[in-house]
């Protein structure tokens, strides 16, 4: 049995790697993409273009402006001198935020009244806007605390914030392990989903069926190349994530690889299932797409699953990437031990088994 599987596997590898273009397409893009996306995917804003319209000649307003201008993630681009100049700045996206200080600001503060400052934010990207407002609040809090200290007012309660597992709240630490899952899914699904469809279209699948191969053997022979390629690429990507992007790897490698093994198993299962359903390569490609795009978007990669409506959260339970992301982030950032991740392991095994069974069944039945 293993001799036959071996032969099929060698043939699959040859089919995949003999053509120079398809060889390049399978191996190079994931590595290049990790580098580009690793830098691109971040929710942190580090150069917020902002404008200041300061009508107040007082000291307090100057100090407030200095706090914004001095903050590392703010970058002053304009100083409008009338209300009418504000709208064009925001409309044309030259400034993401406008700080408007009224003429009474310093006087109000000196008199012990609260001084109001208007902050206008471009809400076209509401997430950026929300993050920006968070930065503004932090700066305002710092200003308030210092002002009260100088004027001898009493502080009542202060907030002390600590972030576990990611002290500087770098979203890159969260997103780069996610990209590892994303790219692995991309490669394995593509490699397997077209493998049976191609043989069907070229008519060689009929020949395969009349050989002494049993469906299980065909299944294994078709799955193993994707498995090996996926494993190799994942290892390379994990190395880049830790050494190049400096994402801390705090947990056990064995836990990571256990998760990886099951994730490859489940995504190959889905890929082969799609492939055995498809008659043409176009259908196979479409199927791979229909599986992959929602899997990525609904995996919790960029937007948390907890924000979805409840029925949608239940839908995500059949998505293998969802479980793998929990595992890889847990192992990377939190050092989560194996036993705490058990609830993430078995669903992937189940998804893989169900899909492979269906694929094996379809090999036999779907012949035309």
């Amino acid at each position, binding site marked *: 049995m293993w001799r036959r599987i071996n032969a099929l596997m060698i043939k699959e590898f040859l089919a995949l790697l003999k053509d120079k273009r398809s060889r390049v397409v399978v191996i190079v893009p994931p590595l290049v993409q990790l580098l580009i996306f690793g830098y691109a995917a*971040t929710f942190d804003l580090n150069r917020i273009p902002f404008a200041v319209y300061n009508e107040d000649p007082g000291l307090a307003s100057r100090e407030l402006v200095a706090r914004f201008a001095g903050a590392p993630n703010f970058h002053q681009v304009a100083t409008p001198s009338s209300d009418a100049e504000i709208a064009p700045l925001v409309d044309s996206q030259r400034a993401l935020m406008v700080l408007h200080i009224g003429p009474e600001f310093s006087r109000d503060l000196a008199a012990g009244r609260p001084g109001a400052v208007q902050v206008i934010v471009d809400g076209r990207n509401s997430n950026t806007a929300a993050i920006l407002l968070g930065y503004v609040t932090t700066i305002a809090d710092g200003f308030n605390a210092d002002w009260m200290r100088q004027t001898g007012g009493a502080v009542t309660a202060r907030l002390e914030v600590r972030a576990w597992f990611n002290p500087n709240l770098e979203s890159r630490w969260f997103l780069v392990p996610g990209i590892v899952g994303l790219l692995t899914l991309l490669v394995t699904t593509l490699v397997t989903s077209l493998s049976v469809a191609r043989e069907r279209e070229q008519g060689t699948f009929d020949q395969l069926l009349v050989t002494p191969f049993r469906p299980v053997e065909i299944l294994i022979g078709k799955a193993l190349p994707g498995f090996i390629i996926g494993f190799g690429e994942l290892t390379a990507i994990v190395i880049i994530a830790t050494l190049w992007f400096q994402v801390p790897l705090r947990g056990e490698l064995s836990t990571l690889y256990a998760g990886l093994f099951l994730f490859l198993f489940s995504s190959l299962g889905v890929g082969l299932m799609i492939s055995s359903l498809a008659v043409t390569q176009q259908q196979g490609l479409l199927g791979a797409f229909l599986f992959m795009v929602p899997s990525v978007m609904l995996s919790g990669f960029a937007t948390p699953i907890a924000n979805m409506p409840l029925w949608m959260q239940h839908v995500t339970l059949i998505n293998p990437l969802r479980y793998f992301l929990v595992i890889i982030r847990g192992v990377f950032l939190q050092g989560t031990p194996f036993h705490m991740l058990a609830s993430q392991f078995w669903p992937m095994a189940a998804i893989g088994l169900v899909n492979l069974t269906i694929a094996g069944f379809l090999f036999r039945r779907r012949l035309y």
Partner: protein
Amino acid sequence: MSALSRMRLRGLVRKEFYQILRDPSSIAIAFLLPVFLLLIFGYGISLDAEHVPVAVVVEQPDVETASLAARFSGSSYFAPVFLSDLGEAENALRERRVNAIVHLQQDFSRRLRRTDGAPIQLIVNGTDANTARLVIGYVQGAWQTWLEQRAAESGVTPGTPLRIDQRVWFNSELRSRNYLVPGLIAIIMTLIGALLTALVMAREWERGTMEALMVTPVTMGEVLLGKLVPYFLLGLGSMALSVAMGLWLFKVPLLGSPWLLFGVSALYLLAALGMGLLISTVAKNQFVAGMVAIITTFLPAFLLSGFIFDIGSMPTVVQVITRFLPARYFVASLQTLFLAGNVWSVILPNIAALTVFALLFLGTSRCLMHKRLE
């Protein structure tokens, strides 16, 4: 080479239409895919965190801590769990049962009266930095309102000297769906445009029908147009469907002109289809064409177009790379057209860029198509 012949072109277009109609997968790409994707993503993708599970640890309950804790139980942003032991809360944080811990120490009320104030300890799970930051913002809000409420009750001057009066333009409620849906339409059109055409040329090469076409009098320009016209119409249909869903199902406001939206979309569709045709022409092999189409469209459109991650915050090298992505210009145009209106200073440069891409892709495809066997 003869000039374009309308009769030949009509024949090619008709043949392509038959092929589309008889293989249901193209129709599915054009009409079922956008509905399916927009439904899933419109509901599934949200950055608005509500009912965040938070552990509130009060070591010694009294009036002060009760009024602060009430700020958490009364807010729709939090789903608080009240505990009395920090160790228990830390375990919950480790097991991801809560996202954050608000910790009030034993001497909280006593230290409130001292000049240096009492600390409110906030521990967040920083794994998901974006959510962590939102949670910190929410807690800051709860803390500030509590301070103001206390100050008002005791009659002293308001607690904060500086008050921020925030105005969010174009999307005052910060509804993330309002900006995600236009971006999603852009991503969906990228996928559809490239998917529809990526395989068509490669398929003709692979099946040998390209050779059959070569012995006919059709020119390569006609072949290209014959492929482009049916898929362009199909793409426009699916664009209209997506916009309709965005407006009526997801209630995203459209402040700009519908005609301008139509124009920009048509232009983008030409660029996306042109990219698919170019891939297909170069690859000549359905497997490679499919791989390249997926790799160059979906993830770049998702991650590099400004759909979700801010382009201005990327390193300069990556920002330069995004300039070569047609999706980037389309996402920017759509977000502005939907939420801000006809802002010409944003729209015109984007239209110019899209025109360049459409011409570039279609022109290059035309140049690379030779009536010649290798």
